[in-house]
Structures are given as C-alpha cells and as structure tokens.
C-alpha cells in the first residue's frame, strides 16, 4: 500500500486531530505539528505520529498535524485513516485490522 494522493482525516473539533498526508519523493517525513497542548504533549504527539507512519510503511511524505488535544488512540486512528484515503484504496478492500492498523 502506498500514498498516491493527499489523504486527510479528522476534524478541528476539541479532542480531535486533523491529519493530512501528501506523497513526496525525497525519502523524508516532513512533519508540521500544531497543537493546543503542544507544551505538555508535543513530544508525545510527534512520537505517536512517527510510530504510526513507520508501522504503515510511510517513508516519504509531507505530514500536517493540527491537534486540539486528541488522545493517542485518536491520533493513531486519524493517521491510519489519512493514509488509507491517500492510498485511494478500495473501501471494500481488505484492511490489515490488528496488523498495521491497531
């Protein structure tokens, strides 16, 4: 599975996070992170996003994270959803539940 286009998931509501992934070719993860709780949780949000991307096998992407205090489980879910939307995969297709999707 590979990013083909920009994929976005999430909202700007309180306790949610909006994640956008765009494919790039430079082999880098270019992360832009904004968060209402950046002072206390910025480091953890960054780690959660990077871990999720690694698990999904994303190695080259522009990643925009706009967080409004989402919990780690929400952040993971939004990154995964943005990824599969960016992959333009068949919505009825097989998803790796319990594998890379946790």
């Amino acid at each position, binding site marked *: 599975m590979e990013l083909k286009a920009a994929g976005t998931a999430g909202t700007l509501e309180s*306790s949610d996070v909006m994640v956008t992934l765009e494919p790039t070719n430079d082999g880098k993860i270019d992360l832009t992170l904004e968060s*209402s*709780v950046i*002072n206390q949780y*910025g*480091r953890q949000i960054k780690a959660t996003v990077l871990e999720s991307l690694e698990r999904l096998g994303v190695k080259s992407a522009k990643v925009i994270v706009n967080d409004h205090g989402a*919990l*780690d489980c929400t952040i993971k879910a939004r990154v995964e959803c943005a990824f599969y939307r960016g992959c333009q995969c068949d919505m009825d297709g097989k998803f790796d539940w319990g594998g890379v999707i946790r």
Partner: protein
Amino acid sequence: MKNAVGREIPAEALAVELKNGRKYEPYQGKGYRDGKYIKKAGPTTKIYENPQESKILPSIRDAVIACGIKDGMTVSFHHHFRNGDYIVNMVMKEIVDLGIKDITIAASSLGDAHDPIAEYIEKGIVTGIQTSGIRGKMGDVVSHGKLKTPAILRSHGGRVRAIEEGDVHIDVAFIGAPTSDEYGNARALGGKGDCGVLSYAVPDSEYADKVVVITDTLVPYPNFPPSIHGVNVDYVVKVDEIGNPKKIASAAARMTQNPRDLMMAENTAKVIAACPWFKDGFSFQTGAGGPSLAVNRFLEPLMDAKGIKMAWAIGGITAAICELQRKGKVGKIIDVQDFDTGAIEDIRTNPNHFEMTASEYANPANKGAFVNKLDFVVLAALEVDTDFNVNVITGSDGVLRGAPGGHPDTAEGAKCCVIVTPLTRGRMATICEHVVTVTTPGDCVDVVVTDYGTAVNPRRKDIIEALDAAGIKHVPIKQLQEKAYSLVGKPDDLQFKDKVVAILEARDGTILDVVKEIKPFEF
C-alpha cells in the same frame, strides 16, 4: 529558598520592593501571621472645609489633571462591571494621552475587556500591575516578560490586606458607579448598567489619596444608602456610558445539563451532607461554574430530608442561591459581587440580601472576616496536585489567564473546602503531580470531587471519619492522578525562562509561588 508548599522562591522575587518597606517572605503555611499586629497605612487627603455645591468635573481628563497624576503613580479600579467595563480603558487612555508614564495599575481584577492595556505595557507606559485576575492580551504580554516589574497577583482578601498594610499605596482610585450624586455618594443600583454592589471598591475609596467616582447616571443628592461614601470622594465625572450593561450583568447561568457535571455536583452535595457542620444554621458559598452552581440544586433535598436551613450564604451571588432563599431555606445573603441579573434584581428588593465590603468578605488582617465563619465552600480549579495545591491562574501553556479571586480566602477560612473538577479536560490532566502555579496552598484544601472519585486531604482526619461513617467512598489523590495520566499520558514539564513575570502572594502577603517568562515550545 523553598517555601511551605515546596516552591523555589527566587531571590529576585523576594527582593521586590513594597511601598511600605515590608520585606517579602516565602509562604510559611496557613495561619502564619495570625495574632500578629499591623499598623494600618493612611491616605493623605484634602480638607474640604468650605462649602461647595458640587464635585462634578466635566471630563475624565479634567479629573486626571485635578488629581495631579504624575509619572510613577499608582491608580486603582474595581471589577464589578466584569467584561462590560469601560472605565479602565477610558481612564488609562486619558492618562496616556497626557503623556504620563511609569504607571502602576492596582485593580481588584482585570479581564478580557482590558486588552488595550497590553499595548501600554509593551510601550513601557504601564510598568506595574497588581490585580487578582489577569487574562487575554494582558496575560499574554506579561507572560512574555513585557511588563517592567513583576505583576503582583493577590486574592480578594489579600488585596485589602495589602492596601491596609501599605504594601501598595493607591494615589488615585477611579471608581465606576451605576449611580452617583454630585458629592460622590455612589450606588450600584438605579442606573443604566447596575452591578448590584460595589464591595471591591470600598477599600480603594478609604485608602486612596484621591478618589474619583465615574458614573453615567447622576441622581439627586443624597444618593443613600451609598456603597461608596461621598465623604471619601474628591471628584465626580459623568460619562455617556460606564460599560456595556449586557456584559456587566449576564442573564442567569443556566443550570448545567451535562451529566458529568451533575454527577460531580450530586457527589459534592453528599460529601457536604456527611460532614458534622451540615446542621441547622450552616453557612455556605459556591462559585458560578457549572458543577459548583449545580451543587445548590442537590443540596436542597438533602437539607429538606434533614429538616435544616442555611443561616447565611456569601460570595459572588447568583440567582440560584436567591431562589433557594425565596423558598425560605436561606436566612441571609451577604453579597460581595453579583454574577447575574437575578442576583442584582434580588438585592434591589430583598431585605435579607445585604452588601458587604471586600474586607468584611475576606481580609485576613481584619478582626474576623465572613470567610472565617464559613462552614462550606465549593470551588473549581484548573489543576489540583497530589499535595492538594490548586492552580487557578496559569493555563496548560504556562500563560496567565485566570484569577485567584476569593479562592484562597474561602479555602483557608472555611471548615470544609471542596474542589469540584473533572479528572481531565480534553487532554489536560486536572489532577496532576505538580500544578504549574500554586494559587491556593494544599494545607487549605480539604476534599477534591472528580468524575472518577473523591479524595480527602489526609490532614483532615475528621472529614475522612465523617465520610467513612456515611459510607461515602473516597480514594487517595495519588490514585486519581495515576488514573488521569493513564488516560491522557504524563505531561511534560512546561519550559520557562528565568525571568520572574508575576508573584503569587498568599493572602497573608508572603510569596506562595512565582510565574516565569514563557519559553516558546521546542522539541
């Protein structure tokens, strides 16, 4: 030097000069100054022996000039007009336009309505802020180290003590009033923007060298009974509007329908009912926040079941407590501030609803304020730590955005102080290991009620016994903190620079904590 709540108080803060030469000490624990003496400071006031018909001046500018405001002076304001206030901005504009600088603002509180002051701070015209509340742009610029001297933040009672003791000397007090006569007898009722009471302005009227009453409604002399007495007033100015009436008095806060708030309120009421002070003739104060306000509703059936009545309620008054009194369940309401139109309407007509001064309410240095006889107070918090210290001033980003208000005063005075707060707010853990800033010391906080359980301060063995006897479950506060961190993760410590931007005074005038300049976040 570490103080009694374990906070490091830098020498820079302890060296801050007070007007009377008193030296700052670190907080020593509650009751430290009990039984000691103070010499009250007195203002230098002008003699008006010759009869005069009127004290009215044509404009605020004329009053600023007549008062002889000069560089380096301290001017004061009250916060009864809340977010509808026009007075602070109108007066400061005239002072600034006259080219006067190095001004200290000593207000009972400041809020979002005062954003223009931030610019005067950045320009170095306002160099000192002494207040309870600091929010909005002003909180932001002060947190970024733009104010020349550290802001001094006090509780409502602590402010009266500081004025009476002379820690702060007010050169000119500007008192906005809904009505006044030509001699400065001022009331909070009968005008275009009524605020109910003028309690917080009373010490200013008694201890400032010069006092100016600003009103938009002149009434015939004598405007009695006055909140601010004309004998303390030098000048009266009539303006078009003292504030926005809609923001001065908001409609009654609707009782919360949030099930989490209601559950916490119900549990709080049960804790109160289990305490030995819950008997006929008890006294009570609660805030206007969602869960605190809802406690009124759950307390009523418990009072009925026991066949008891409340003797008196104090504090910021809301329609909810007035309603309870109308049902014959509260003897007297003693009012220091009105939070809604219901409370203002009530004090207009109800003979058992009285105005008190800020000193009578909460001053720790007089001979016994109302808070000293209070049985129960229910309060909110931004954060509570495992030592029961409470923060109500700094947000999770370390920026100033709150007010100690009467929190530390009522917490120390009341026999039982209950903090009601959800365990988490979004991703923020309300119950944490260390609060960002201590605004009410843990030795004054007795019970914490959250949506995940109740904790009692181990110092209060009597309350623990009472809850056990009533079968009310409680847990160690550490357990609540661990639960919170398991939900949201352990927060990183905030990053600050070294500069002290604000001093948090305990109500006795020692230093409870300091706030340092915020450092932009770096990974």
